[in-house]
């Protein structure tokens, strides 16, 4: 037990160090890019058809955002504010706070992507296990392999646009885009929830169909390689049913790498699916990140990357915590680790 706790502590320290180093990198790197974040403000004014007073406005902004101070001063002040939990104002969306922008986008990204990741993981793993186990015996299951390959390699946006055209335009079964119907207020009610679900079907389907292939193929290959293990042979010799051997023995062992993959995928969902959001006008984080990068909106870039780094590091930490619990072999190996 003590070994386990020590292991956890070590992993936690790594988590904190990772986040800190990443935050420092993401602070300095965007500032090395040639160009001025206030240029984005200029461009916003340009989109209003020109502005005679722009230079004065920009000078005022430079002062307000502390962009006229030295890089080190800005870094120190950034860390100080971060410690207080203040991510600052967005430069291009001033006076919106970075946390406001994240708060608006995060639920949609997490909601959509977490659910779709889990669904495609579960479906892919289950179907992949069955196909891997049955192998060449069933023609139907064999046919699923090229199908999965095709789905896996189709460019995501093509599939998304096809789905939109068929199901939203031609057959009018689902709405064209958006997270919920225009005019509907986002309150906690059954109506709203159903509306959100209805709007989520197409974006979710496009993501699930494309990611399904990967989980399917990886699970299938894992099961196939496990089939030759000694303990499987012993189980067969003991007279256990095929079904029991598949689910209780092979599947349980093959799940380990799949769980790792799932945790890492979940960590990455925070990055948002940019193309999904563009095609379906889904108000998630991907769009926010993209815009902040092209606009050199430093506070928002820092906030988004911090979020992503934190999520991925947390996911890794979660694997580290969970793994020893589900795989007894790891636990016993603790004594030998540093």
């Amino acid at each position, binding site marked *: 037990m003590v070994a386990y706790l020590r292991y956890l502590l070590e992993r936690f320290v790594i988590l904190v160090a990772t986040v800190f180093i990443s935050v420092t990198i993401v602070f300095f790197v965007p500032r090395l*890019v*040639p*160009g*001025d*974040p206030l*240029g*984005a403000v*200029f*461009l*916003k004014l340009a*989109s*209003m*058809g*020109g*502005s*005679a*007073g*722009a*230079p*004065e*406005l920009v000078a*005022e*902004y430079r002062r*307000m955002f502390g962009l006229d101070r030295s890089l080190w001063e800005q870094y120190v002040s950034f860390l100080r504010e971060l410690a207080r939990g203040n991510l600052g104002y*967005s*430069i*291009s*969306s*001033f*006076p*919106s706070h970075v946390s*406001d922008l994240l708060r*608006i986008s995060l639920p949609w990204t997490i909601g959509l992507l977490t659910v779709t990741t889990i669904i495609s993981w579960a479906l892919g793993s289950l179907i992949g296990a069955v196909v891997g186990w049955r192998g060449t015996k069933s023609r139907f299951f064999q046919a699923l392999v090229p199908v999965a390959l095709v789905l896996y390699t189709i460019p995501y946006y093509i599939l998304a*646009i096809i789905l*939109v055209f068929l199901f*939203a*335009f*031609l*057959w*009018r079964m689902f709405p*064209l*885009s*958006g*997270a*919920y119907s*225009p*005019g*509907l*207020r986002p309150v906690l009610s059954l109506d709203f929830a159903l509306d959100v679900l209805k709007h989520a079907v197409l974006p979710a389907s496009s993501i699930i169909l494309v990611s399904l292939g990967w989980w399917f193929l990886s699970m299938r290959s894992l099961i196939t390689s496990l089939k030759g293990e000694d303990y499987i042979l012993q189980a067969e010799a003991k007279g256990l049913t095929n079904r029991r051997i598949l689910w209780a023995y092979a599947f349980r062992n093959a799940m380990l790498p799949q769980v790792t993959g799932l945790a890492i995928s979940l960590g990455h969902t925070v990055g948002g699916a940019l*193309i999904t959001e*563009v*095609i*379906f*006008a889904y*108000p998630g984080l991907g*769009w*926010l990140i993209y*815009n902040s990068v*092209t*606009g050199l909106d430093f506070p928002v870039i820092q906030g988004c990357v911090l979020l992503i780094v934190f999520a991925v590091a947390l996911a890794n930490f979660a694997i580290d915590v969970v793994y020893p619990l589900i795989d007894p072999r790891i636990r016993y190996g603790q004594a030998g680790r540093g």
Partner: protein
Amino acid sequence: MVTSKNRMIVIALVAVIAIVLSACAPKEVIVTKEVPVEVTTVVEVEKPVEVVVTPTPVPPGAEQLARAETLNLALSGRIADPTNLNIYAPGVSRSGTGIHQVIYEYFFYQNLQTGEYIPWIAESYEYNADFTTITVKLRDGVEWSDGEPFTPEDVVFTYDTLLANPGMTWAAEVSKWVESVEKVDDLTVKFNLKQASPRYHLNREAFPGVGIWGGITILPKHIWEGQDPLTFKSSDPIGTGAYTLANASATVMTYERNDNWWGTKVFGVTPAPKTISFQYLGPETNVALALAANEIDSPFIGILSLGSFLEVARRNPNVSAWHKDAPYAWLDPCPRPLMVQNATPPWDKAEARWALSYLIDRQAIVNLAYEGTTVPSWGIWPFYDGNTPYFDAIQDLRDQYPTDVYDPAKAAELFESIGYTKGADGYWASASGERLKVRYLVESSSTEEMKVSAVLADQLEAGGIEVEVQPMTGGVLSDAILRGEYEIKLHSFCPGYIFDNLDLFNGKYYVPLGEPAPWYERNSFRYNNPAFDAIVDEMAGTPPTDMEKTTDQFHRAMEIWFKDLPVIPMVQAPALVPFNTTYWEGWPSADNPWNMPVSWWATFTLVVTGYPSPETGEWVGGIRPAGQ
């Protein structure tokens, strides 16, 4: 030791590196930026597909009735923070949220199509003898949407706030022109100007009159007093407009008609749509599908390309644009000349700039890059009827200086006259052997600019100039243009008015190369001619209504401008804005040019409701339900 295994590893490594390198091609940019003076076109030359697929009709019901009372407009971008509707925060898009179209109203609106100056919240204006003050009479009966009356105190408060907070949008321009604003009586305000100007009422960045796109917005004192005007979110904005905010989200803004609107009481007119919603539907394909399926009534400028529009119009006969046939597009007020860096040799010589102009085949650019939706332009002003007297006044100069002509022979003559010779490689070279080369800056997120650059770069290369196309966007591009780090760039010249576009060339905006110019089209090209400046400054002090004086000044200024040709006129700007007449009709069009088809300008409120003709007092326009 080179074993077969090592060899295989090396081959595999090389293959992987090759694949990775080939994958590092520039990615396609999908997100569209909101620019009201832009159009995207798709270059497609295939035959149209024969099979016509129409959407399944939706059975009529309660949903249909609601749809028939709703005006749906498609936005070009998402709303970053829907809780922030502070119209003076530079980060808030007034048109992208719909607030300056339906919530706020202005003293006057300029109808550039007809040339009318339309009084709305105000009734009239009058300058004093030396143009240092302007007195505005307000209309009686104007109210805020919460029932409070609109008073001169609101005007005074707004200007006091702008003068005290330089971080507000356009506050700098206000500080430049306005000393103070005072209340004269319950229906009159007086603006005290810092400099004499008979044109102040046309300056949308300092006066509450809408020119192109928008104007200074008067804020309700009883809401904004005591708030920090920069951080106050104004999540439920109160204006004098006929609509109030019903719901705001990152992708949809919904407004509902205010049945207590002052305009109904004063004008006896009610805007027809019960609800107006501004929706972000996603990329061009989604907007096209929605338009074809009658889910939206009109998209913002710059979303639909010509190809998509034609396809939508083929499936849905109720969809049309300004013109029924080519060129389809309405004329946007900001034409597109090619800026030339006057501070960098050899482009500091007029001969070189004229030579460049002769190398450009504008009709080819119109055909290829714009697909025929616009026309070549001899000048940097839009071809509106209101500008005709000026254009006629300089007809002699236009004949003498052919700025829209393609004549490579003449170009060669001019290059030779400044000491360039064409080398064996086909490129012009100076006496010292240096090749003639230009950096061509292009906004990479603008499909229009990217397309033009492809055609123009080819033309210039064929003419013997080496062209280095530099696609950039965001802060990097902005910086490069302002510091003059380019030889050529295509740009919109706003606001497009006769005087204002001339003033862009004023030497008072000249800064040395490397320092940021005041604005992109405000002399980032570093033109400096004191004789020209003198005439333009004279024009600045002449009342715009004195046509005799101003046309004469225009002529004298253009004598110099044409000779120098500091920027090269290219094309008029196309604004392809389709309208769907399934639910709403009465839209402005070439057959019925009563207004401008601008759903992203503050003037849109007049498109929806109509307005009293300044000349006759009769009610003009306003959209109405289809079939009535």
